[in-house]
């Protein structure tokens, strides 16, 4: 099987979202997760601009410039949605009322440290947004990311090389070749793409990574491309 596409990584993460939970999806790949949440579960998506209960992206006719998410997407509201101001939205986030935040990541360390805000491009301004608040405040932080950089370097590391977003926050990593738990002992592979050997996984990971006792194949249905 080929390495997972962005949609496929998002699909895989969506399958682990618990029924009845409140989830914040970061800008970029994480927001794709909303397209793949199983129909039989009921989830409230929070966006840090204050919308609790983000619905599907708006059709052209519905678009209201004021009904947007934190990524400026024009959205709809799901039944039972509510909207608060930014101070209350981050009180909700910081206060532990979000079950899971799904974020993009440049790097994750074996102790759960996350680096996702500063790629250190010279003279480009910083872009923090709500990532630090989400990573610290949500009950669980999951990251979606490519397992390696374009030039082949590891993104799962013993220690992050880029500036940290938050310490000890990531519990689950979904990559194009694996699902990895960040356990007390470090990285543990829960799922691995067919055709990727344990040795290859270790070679592509910048820290010690255990193969879970019950490690499965990472499988995505053909309908997701």
């Amino acid at each position, binding site marked *: 099987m080929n390495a997972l596409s962005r949609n496929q990584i998002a699909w895989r993460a969506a399958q682990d979202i618990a029924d009845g939970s409140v989830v914040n999806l970061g800008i970029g790949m994480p927001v794709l997760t909303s397209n793949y949440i199983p129909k039989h579960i009921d989830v409230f998506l929070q966006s*840090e601009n204050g919308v609790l209960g983000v619905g599907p992206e708006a059709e052209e006719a519905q678009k209201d410039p004021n009904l*947007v998410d934190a990524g*400026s997407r024009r959205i709809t509201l799901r039944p039972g949605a509510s*909207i608060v101001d*930014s*101070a209350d939205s981050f009180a909700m986030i910081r206060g532990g009322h979000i079950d899971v935040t799904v974020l993009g990541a440049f790097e994750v360390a074996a102790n759960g440290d996350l680096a996702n805000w500063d790629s250190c491009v010279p003279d480009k*301004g910083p872009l*923090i947004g709500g990532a630090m608040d989400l990573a*610290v*405040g949500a009950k669980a932080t999951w990251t979606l990311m490519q397992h390696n950089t374009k030039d082949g370097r590891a993104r799962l590391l013993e220690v992050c090389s880029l500036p940290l977003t938050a310490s000890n926050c990531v519990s689950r990593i979904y990559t194009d070749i694996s699902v990895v738990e960040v356990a007390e002992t470090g990285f543990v592979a829960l799922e691995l793409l067919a055709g990727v050997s344990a040795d290859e996984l270790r070679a592509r990971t910048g820290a010690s990574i255990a193969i879970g006792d019950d490690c499965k194949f990472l499988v995505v249905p053909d309908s997701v491309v």
Partner: protein
Amino acid sequence: MAIDKRMVSPSDAVADVKDGAVVMVSGFGGAGFPNIMLDALREQGLRDLTLVVNSATHVYSLTHTLIEAGQVAKVICTAARGRGEGLSPFEKLWRDGRIELECIPQGNFSERIRAGGAGIPAFYTPVGHGTDLAVGKEVREFGGRLCVLETAITGDLALVRGDRADPFGNVTFLYAQMNFGPAMASACSTTVAEVREALEEPMSHNEVQLPSVYVDRVVAVGGEP
């Protein structure tokens, strides 16, 4: 005399702002930018302003026009990265040391502004601890968690975009237009609400999203362009 905070002219509503003022500007995710008032403020030709705004470079906000006109000495924000690979006007000024930047996590940003309006001079937060943004900040442990001390942000002028306002200064917002508006209005000595429509009659208490006590001037400008 019956209270009536409605003003006809955007420029009259900011005529008393002075060089060096701290100006807060609402808006996030494409919603809630007080662009008519930002235009009026720019035309005042003030110098050495400090802007407190979520993004220094958002394309839909006219915040950047004050920066490009050289009227801004400092920006306090959560995002200052221009689009694309080249440098934005802000990024060039920043690189050249001609503008000061304080970039902070969005939840600390909103909470510091809320604190400014709520008479709380400082608070501890777990967000940012252990990151480059907390370097030099006081650290203290609460319940086993390391937290940083953050101080309130207050301002001279808040420019807030809403939907409707009544003569007393009560304001409603459309959807996610609310974002930083209420907190900023509470944290500044003068607040100008730029709204689509100024009402002749008072609104119901159930409609009010920003109470009159926080709004000094109302300018009706019609819908967003």
